[in-house]
Each structure stands twice: as structure tokens, then as C-alpha cells.
């Protein structure tokens, strides 16, 4: 349904489009062009610490050294792989824990449901950093959990939980669980309970009914939830820094360190570009295809 585009007073409409458009061109698109540009430069000790794209004589000076370095140094490949694997495992854990929770909330009485939902949303409004911090107090060698375990006599040595991959998983699942639950809840709540009952009426056990009815219908929510967890988890910086050990090199932290500690801006830019092209763009495309497929099926 087309709107009144042919009529006179559309100036305000143009302004309403142009303002956010310009803002995003300058502060979202242009920065990527700059990252791309710097990723082809050489690092130098100067301010800014990279060579200009055009030399003094006007000649184009670009180098693929940064990318060559990323693809030859095994450390980076391992780091990318580990980041993706950890994010994927954390996403799976979130789904495993989040699905029954979302299901339980969606099936609760309306009054209870509202309160349960509020309690899921509440931590989201509380500082992310402080929520990760809370686990530092729990997982520490002299933290709450170890104190409890030793007091109960389960162990007489504190268990090393802090600064391990285990702690990173805890931090990731804890921080991103609400992002998984909310979209799941949204699809499950909209789902007609009669469908499951109809399946059971036709002879399906509740397990069969779950796999035949509930799971396929919840798929849009599952995909949205996984996306909301996986992408930020891949580039996560705070959690591995605070909870992980010094050897737990995840890509977000590598980028941060290359930039701030090593002051190698071109390499940090190349790390970012590779992350965008290898992880972010494929996933967004995948999700778009999925969404289109679901739309067509509906």
C-alpha cells in the first residue's frame, strides 16, 4: 500500500529520513571504510601509528602483511576457532537451560507469568559488568562457593574455578541467558496450546508431541535467541578478561590488546575485518535465509 508520496508536503518526510541516514553514514558506515583502510597499512611509531594510504609522492601504499600475518601465525587461527567454539558451546548451554525456562514461563498462569518474566528482564537492566563481577566473588579460591564447600567438608583444598574456561562458560551463560529466554518465550507464548493437545489426542506421547509440534514451531525463537547470544559472545571482552585465565585468549581480548597494549592499529583493524567477514556477515546472512524460509513456510 503506497502512501501519499505524490503530494506536496513531503519535506518533513525527507528530513526524517535524511537525519538518521546521515548520522549512520558518518558514524557507522564511514568507520568501517576507515578500519578497512587501516588494515592495509603498516604500523609505525607515530601518531596515528600507521602509514597513510597514499605516500608523499602520491603513490598508493597498501600492504597485505597484516592479513598474511593473521593467516600464517597459528595463534590467530586458534584464537578465532576457540572464540567461535566457546561462543557456540555457551549458546548451546543457554538454549538447553533457557528453553525449559521459557516454556515454563509461557505455560504459567498469567499472573505468575508476568512476575516470572519481570524477574528474567530485571538482571538485564542491572549493569552487565557488575553481574560478571558478582561471579568473581563466588568463584574465587577464597570465594563463597569454595568457603561453602570447605565448610561442608566436601573438599579441604579450594577448587580452582576462577581464571578457567569453566568460569568463562559460567559468565557467558549467566550474562546472555535472558537474551535466549526472551525470544523463546515470545514464540512459545504465541503458540496455540491446542496444537500439542491435538497431537496428544491423535496418539502422540508428550515427548513425541514436543519434537513434532513444539520444537518446530519454536524454531524462529530458537534462531533469534541463538543469534542474540552467539554474536556478542564471540567478540566478548569483559568476561574472558575478568573470569578467564591469562591464557584464555579470545578474539575480543586479542583485538583489545593488539590495539591498546601493542598499539598495532593496522593489525587490530585486520583482526576486526576478519571477524566481520568470517563470523558476523555469514551468520547474519544465514539468519536472513532462515527467516525468509520460515516466512515462506507460514
Amino acid at each position, binding site marked *: *500500500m*503506497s502512501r*501519499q508520496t*505524490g503530494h506536496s508536503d513531503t519535506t518533513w518526510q525527507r528530513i526524517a529520513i535524511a537525519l538518521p541516514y546521515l548520522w549512520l553514514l558518518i558514524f557507522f558506515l564511514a568507520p568501517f571504510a576507515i578500519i578497512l583502510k587501516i588494515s592495509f597499512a603498516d604500523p609505525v611509531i607515530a601518531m596515528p601509528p600507521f602509514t597513510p594510504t597514499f605516500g608523499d609522492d602520491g603513490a598508493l601504499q597498501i600492504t597485505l602483511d597484516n592479513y598474511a600475518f593473521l593467516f600464517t601465525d597459528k595463534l590467530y587461527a586458534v584464537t578465532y576457532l576457540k572464540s567461535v567454539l566457546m561462543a557456540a558451546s555457551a549458546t548451546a548451554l543457554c538454549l538447553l537451560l533457557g528453553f525449559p525456562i521459557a516454556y515454563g514461563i509461557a505455560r504459567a498462569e498469567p499472573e505468575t507469568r508476568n512476575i516470572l518474566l519481570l524477574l528474567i528482564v530485571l538482571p538485564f537492566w542491572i549493569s552487565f559488568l557488575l553481574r560478571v563481577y558478582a561471579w568473581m566473588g563466588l568463584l574465587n579460591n577464597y570465594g563463597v562457593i569454595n568457603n561453602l564447600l570447605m565448610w561442608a567438608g566436601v573438599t579441604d583444598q579450594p577448587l580452582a574455578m576462577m581464571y578457567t574456561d569453566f568460569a568463562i562458560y559460567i559468565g557467558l551463560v549467566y550474562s546472555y541467558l535472558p537474551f535466549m529466554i526472551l525470544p523463546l518465550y515470545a514464540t512459545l507464548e504465541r503458540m496455540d496450546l491446542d496444537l500439542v493437545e491435538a497431537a496428544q489426542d491423535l496418539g502422540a506421547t508428550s515427548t513425541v508431541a514436543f519434537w513434532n509440534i513444539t520444537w518446530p514451531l519454536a524454531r524462529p525463537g530458537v534462531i533469534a535467541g541463538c543469534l542474540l547470544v552467539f554474536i556478542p559472545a564471540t567478540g566478548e571482552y569483559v568476561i574472558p578478561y575478568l573470569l578467564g585465565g591469562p591464557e584464555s585468549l579470545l578474539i575480543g581480548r586479542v583485538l583489545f590488546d593488539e590495539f591498546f597494549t601493542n598499539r598495532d592499529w593496522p593489525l587490530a583493524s585486520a583482526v576486526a575485518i576478519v571477524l566481520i567477514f568470517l563470523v558476523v556477515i555469514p551468520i547474519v546472512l544465514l539468519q536472513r535465509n532462515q527467516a525468509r524460509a520460515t516466512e515462506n513456510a507460514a
Partner: protein
Amino acid sequence: MTARSSNSAFIEVRKLSKHFGDFVAVDAVSLKIERGELFSILGGSGCGKTTLLRMLAGFETPTSGQVFLDGVDITNQPPYERPVNMMFQSYAVFPHMTVEQNVAYGLKKERLPKEETASRVREMLSLVKLDDFGARKPNQLSGGQRQRVALARALVKKPKVLLLDEPLAALDKKLREHTQFELMNIQDELGITFVVVTHDQEEAMILSNRIAVMEKGRFEQIGTPKEVYEFPRNRFVADFIGTINTFDGVVQNSGDGIVTVASDECGQSLRALCDKPPKNGSDVCIAVRPEKIFISQYKPDNHEDACLEGVVEDLGYFGNLSLYRIRLATGKVVQVSSQNRRRSIERSFDWDDNVYISWRPRSALVLEP
């Protein structure tokens, strides 16, 4: 703006088309509506009736064609400049405004003096019997009350034409019947031209002076309710409005305005009145409405009438009338309805009864197959 309509029609639609990509929603339709008429556009979903209405209101820009109102070309006028108002199917009552503010909205846009606005709003609310509801918010109203707010809001602007998109679809059955007559009274009182879009043939029949039956973006027939019901121009209209029995056959003989058709479907010849009889040997179809058919236990002795023998396959009791499905020896099933004039606990006819059905030649129609 300078082009004038060719004659005195109040609304004239000339070869109006609307394409959405490859899809032709409205296909070069032409239409004339007189001042003060209550005109209905009737059709199934997706027939283009709502698109046509939205072009009259100015929400869709026609792909081609023109719309004249009172002699003025309004094809390119935006909705806010047209002297036409619309009552939306969803009623579109502004939820953040009171009933009074809703009704006053259009007058405020005309910058009328406050006192005049207030008095016209009051007048209009009393016309739709909402005098005491002015301060209420829409969510405190029933569906029927919201519908009347939407009506008052559109009428208070004294439009030349009121467009109504499925005005009664959202109401329950009892309220719908009541509202139908209320709408007609209001239209009568104010003398405003109404154009109604509906999918409900009963609604169209009761409300309108004339009906346009629309299908696939075109008008199949335009006429009074009686015309489209009793003299449908083709099989689609006959089928769409009410129920009809059809018998395919070949013209054997035509003359004196009477056509004789041999029909294999009922195993004999049928006669029907027809002004423009088709040629001998051409394929036609004879159509008879269920209520035009008599049902009897014995063979009627009037030889002029068509008469068929069959067995009661199904019957339904509706209180005021009974419906029968009669299976002929050829296997063809014919629907018959008959008024239950006598009060009796017993059925006149029962399942598997052998019966005769008959109708007068002038009750039957000759249609293209």
C-alpha cells in the same frame, strides 16, 4: 480540475484501474452513482472492492482512469482535500481521544469556530444516540458504540459521499440487523450518498438502492437488489447471490420468447422464458432458485410447468422454512426450499420419500453455460 463529467451523475468512475505490480486489483471499471443513493459494491475477498473504495477515498492512486465527484475531477486530490469521508472496517476510532474529541477532529482540521464545532458534535452524538458518552475513551465502549462513533465522526463533516468499508462485519448478528435499519434511517434523514463495500450479500440486498457485483477487478452486474437476484446476468452473479440450481443443456427450439432446452442432467426438456433467445443448438444453462420450486407428493397436472421426479436425499428444518435436497434419477441433486406455512410437529416429507418438483417456465432463467 477543469475536466467536467459528461453528464449529471453525482459520482462517476471512468475506466479506473489499479495495478499492484503484475496483479490487477481493479480492471478498468466504470460506474455512475446518483446523488442520495445507497450504493453497494459486493464481492468476495480479493475481488478489488476495497481497492476501489480506497481509490474513491484517495488512499490509493489509480494506475489509470478518473473519478469525478459532482462534476469535478478528484482523481488526484489527496484524501484530506476530498469532500468524501470514510468509515473504516476496523472503525479506526482514535484510542487516545475521547468520543467528543474523535468526532470533533475533522471539524478542528477545518478550523471551525469552537462554538460551532461543539454544537455540531453534540448534534451528531445525539443522532447516533451517544449523547451521554462524549467524555468516554474508546476502550470504555462496546463494538456497536465504537461503530457509531466512527459514523458520527465521518458524518459530522457533512461529506458529499460517505464511504463505508464492511460497516457491519465486526458486529454480532442481532446488532447487525438492528444497525442495518439505523444506517438506512440516518442516510434517509441526511440525504448523503452512501457507498458501501461488503462481502455479505444479505447486507447488500437489505441496505442498497443498487448493487454492483464485483469479481476479479471487474463488475459482473450493476442493478437494483431485485434485478441482480431475479435477473442475474450470468452464472457467477446467480451463484454469488443466493443459491441457484443449474441444468446444462442444448437449445432445441426457441420462439415466442420461450426457449426449450434438452438437458441430459435432468433427463428431459425444460422450458424457460427468455427475451433474447439464443440460437438453436447452442449450449446454455437453465437456472432456478430453490424457493421457486414446488415440492409435492403427487405429480401436478399442469403441463406448462417443468416437472421432475426424485427422492428426498436430505432435509433441513430451519423453523420458518425447510430445505430439501432432491436426487433425480440422473443422479443430479436439486435444492428446494419451502415455507413452513402450517404448524405441525410432523414433517411434510421424509428421507427417501418419492416426490415431484416443479416450477413455472417464467421462474427459470436462461444463462450462458
